[in-house]
């Protein structure tokens, strides 16, 4: 068996426990079915491209991106735990190279990101099926967003895990950064209508781009803005992946 596949197998085994799966399903369900309906009283409809979406449909699709981001935290956690529990060195004195270790993390978060996206799509489908407009671009757009988003956020989590030395520091930084990504984005609410500073800040956040591309795929709306967002997402993922790889390669043993 290929060494990368063996490492991915190991990564999935150590990361996927019942707690993680429940967290990955229950947390978005609460947002979709509780916040989604509760906020309908305040936000009736949300404009998206040439369409108007019901808020539950809007937040359910936002949750797909949010869940992809959340699940990629696992990449940082794997690296952090491997360093903390001595497995990083142990793997590197085994039949593996650093490049294989790094790639195995990318594949792991890619798989988890895709599965998370599929899971939330299935769960949220009853809420947005009326407004869904599947076309030839739907699957490519959602898969592109899932993979680039996973790599981008996985790289951010990896960078954080290589720079910090204490558990407390790792938890504080990763939670703060991901909290910012989650709430200063268009995952939960539209940019239109928000104060100008905030709506500008939304576009300094890669989750906004990820969520917009997912929505574009699901609601069949593709224009120049979505294409630009895809390019930004792709470049961001590539740059951050290179930075994460460089930092991991230089990690002292």
């Amino acid at each position, binding site marked *: *068996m290929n*060494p990368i596949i*063996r*490492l991915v*197998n*190991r990564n999935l*085994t*150590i990361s996927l*426990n019942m707690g993680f799966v429940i967290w990955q399903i229950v947390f978005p369900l609460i947002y979709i079915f509780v916040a989604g309906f509760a906020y309908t009283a305040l936000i009736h409809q949300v404009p998206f491209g040439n369409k108007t979406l019901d808020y539950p449909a809007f937040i359910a699709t936002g949750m797909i991106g949010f869940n992809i981001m959340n699940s990629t935290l696992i990449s940082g956690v794997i690296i952090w*735990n491997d360093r903390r*529990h*001595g*497995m990083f*060195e*142990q*793997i*590197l*004195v*085994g*039949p*593996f*190279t650093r490049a294989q270790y790094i790639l195995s993390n990318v594949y792991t978060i890619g798989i988890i990101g895709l599965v998370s996206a599929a899971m939330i799509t299935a769960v949220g489908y009853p809420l947005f099926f009326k407004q869904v407009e599947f076309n030839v671009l739907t699957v490519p757009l959602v898969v592109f967003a899932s993979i680039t988003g996973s790599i981008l956020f996985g790289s951010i989590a990896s960078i954080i895990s290589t720079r910090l030395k204490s558990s407390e520091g790792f938890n504080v930084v990763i939670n703060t950064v991901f909290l910012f990504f989650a709430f200063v984005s268009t995952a939960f609410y539209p940019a239109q209508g928000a104060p100008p500073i905030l709506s500008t800040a939304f576009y300094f956040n890669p989750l906004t781009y990820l969520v917009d591309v997912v929505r574009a795929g699901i609601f069949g709306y593709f224009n120049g803005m979505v294409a630009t967002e895809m390019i930004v997402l792709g470049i961001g993922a590539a740059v951050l992946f290179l930075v994460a790889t460089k930092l991991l390669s230089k990690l002292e*043993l």
Partner: protein
Amino acid sequence: MYGIEVNSLSKSYGNFTAVDGIDLKVEQGKIFGFLGPNGAGKTTTMKMLTTLIPPSSGKMSILGIDAIKSPLEIRKKIGVVLQQPSYEPTLSVEKSLEKYGMMWNVDKKIRKNRVEELLVAFDLVDIRKKKNDDLSIGQRRRVQVAREFMHDMDLLFLDEPTVGLDPSARRGLLDFIKGKVKDGLTIFFTTHILEEAEYLCDDIAIINKGKIIAVDTPDELKNKFGRQKTIKIHVGQQENISSLLDGIPDCTMEYDTGCIITVHSSQSEQVLQDILKILASNHILVEDLSVVPTSLEEIFLSVVKNSNESNNSPGQ
């Protein structure tokens, strides 16, 4: 072909030289002990030999393969038990062994059998379902060492593998290792417990301040450096005995309250003859007599002390 062959190997961090031009040859199928005080350069050497860090200069050949050119080829043929704990907290003991075997691409059927063998050999059967996070330090160490035997290898590096183990687990591990060496495995072993090195190792190197200061078999090291011996003489009376023996040269003596004289001397045979002559001529009965052999620990302390003194002497 040697298991390990190292020439002028050095590792520096800025101005600090952790390992300073060491030469080593480890024969295949032997257990090689690598001893040294804290900070002597043992772990840095181990990290270079296991290809975890590159040397600053020098040559390394592991199992006949150039370690600088082909580190991955070497890593496929060696096993390493690091000094620091390494474990996956969420996995159970048996799952840890099984997954480690999978990572080494060991066939599923062989993995299954090895897990059972190692659980028994390392006394892990009762805790096989326990998660690594819930184990004691000693149990975790046993799992870490056991896990390394999930895969085949030609050379095993053990960096203080018995730390945290109780005496019976420690002896069990040493005997298990001895058994593996009979099957042809070469072992590079560091430890602070010198009785272990004496019990286990065919050859020993002592490193201090980054330099190898002695290499030989434990017996030869004793012959070379273990000239001072300790003699214990139990006598029937002790009145005025110190005044009778104090004139004997080349020794130091201690008299305890119960009639035991302890003599330290590098000329033990001559000193013993002189003592026995004086005791006989004064009609003092010798009830018991023993010569305590030099332990490896004494050799180690003496060699390291000499090395420190020569490093600190003027002109060095």
